């Protein structure tokens, strides 16, 4: 029996869209291509690539902050949301945020 060699699996790439102030902390990049099979992986890669974003979207336990909404192809995502190839991810402040201020 002939078995074809397994090709190494490449991580999926997503496009992450950022607005101010997150964009400012990502060296002014409003659109970033990042690898990851889950939304949590993509967002951790975002922090790794732009350390000035550390703690802004994810808290110290890797959970998306309560008043930040992350949309994957138009649907509200969680850390476990699967990422399809070429997914478009928007990171936005929640309209429920900022109530203390």
């Amino acid at each position: 029996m002939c078995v074809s060699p397994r090709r190494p699996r490449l991580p999926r790439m997503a496009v992450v869209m950022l607005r101010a102030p997150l964009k400012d902390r990502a060296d002014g990049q409003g659109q970033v291509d990042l690898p990851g099979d889950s939304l949590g992986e993509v967002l951790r890669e975002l922090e790794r690539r732009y350390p000035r974003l550390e703690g802004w979207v994810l808290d110290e336990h890797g959970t998306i902050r309560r008043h930040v909404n992350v949309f994957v192809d138009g649907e509200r995502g969680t850390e476990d949301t699967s990422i399809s190839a070429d997914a478009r991810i928007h990171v936005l402040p929640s309209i429920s945020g900022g109530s203390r201020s």
Partner: protein
Amino acid sequence: MTELLVGSKKGLFVLRGEPGGPFDIAARAFPGDVVEYGTRAPRNGRYFASVTSGFYGPRLMYTDDPTGEWEQAKGPVFPEDIDDKTIDRIWIVQPGEADGVLYAGVAPAALFTSTDSGETWELNRALWNVPTRPEWNPGAGGLALHSICPWPGDPQRLAVGISAAGVWLSEDGGQTWRTGYKGLVPQYVPDEERETTHALCVHNMHRAPQRPERLFLQFHGSVYRSDDTGETWNDIAEGLPSGFGFPMVVDPSDPDNAYVIPLTADVDRVTPDGKVRVFETRDAGGSWIARGDGLPSGDAYLTILRQAFGHDGGSPLGLYFGATSGEVFGSADAGASWFSVHEHLAPVTSVRVSG
């Protein structure tokens, strides 16, 4: 020239001016975010600001030039093994007694230490792990460690105040902690519970540097003094219009001299009788003198928050406080007379003299 760091609900204002007249805004940093606390470390001149975004959470920022760019510190954040807690708010940053050492008090109540001038931070696990912690309850502002009192010249001795979990003392650099509860009377719990409760709502605490075994404490409903390093407390509120309040200053050069700004009551957190007055004691709480010359004296119902009262360490002592009305007041003569530093700012959360 005097420089003030005024934290507000809408950013940090750096005010500069000559005592006696209005100050100018030299810079406004972190617009739109709450700046809980701003201070400057005297040893190296570094500025710190604790900033809380309603969206992106709290963070500690530092700079050598408050009119320029700020860097984000690595922490304070809870370590991974404390898996159900995140930092809500950074209440205070307090320089320690050893070079490069700073402390941060946060909500939920925890103490963090930096040994590299504030760039990285580590949780004090001994205080985090005290056995009574599961019985601690938050005050109205959250479960907050907001007061940190180093002992001048001795980095091993530390006192911290927690709302609402009392006074905690360490004499080994924070490796072990014991309570300093004795004498504090929580009038808001039933008589039979008062001896055993941990619900001791400390609002503010400061040490008298010239007599470091002495501490002054603003409590939820009274004012106290300890002359034995915080082990026991004596009520010194007689003579004040109210025992309730938050702000407190202790004169760094006179251990008998302290200042509070009372508020009417916990259910009415404004200046009593529509008058804005600072109350001074010159005899360690034996008596109090109202200091209101130049302050609003009628129909003035201001709220002055916990960290919104600071001093310049000078002689005579310069005093500065801000209100949630956005007004900032100052005195260049230890409270004898007052002037308007600025008005129409955002609600003031903290005031510290930085230069």
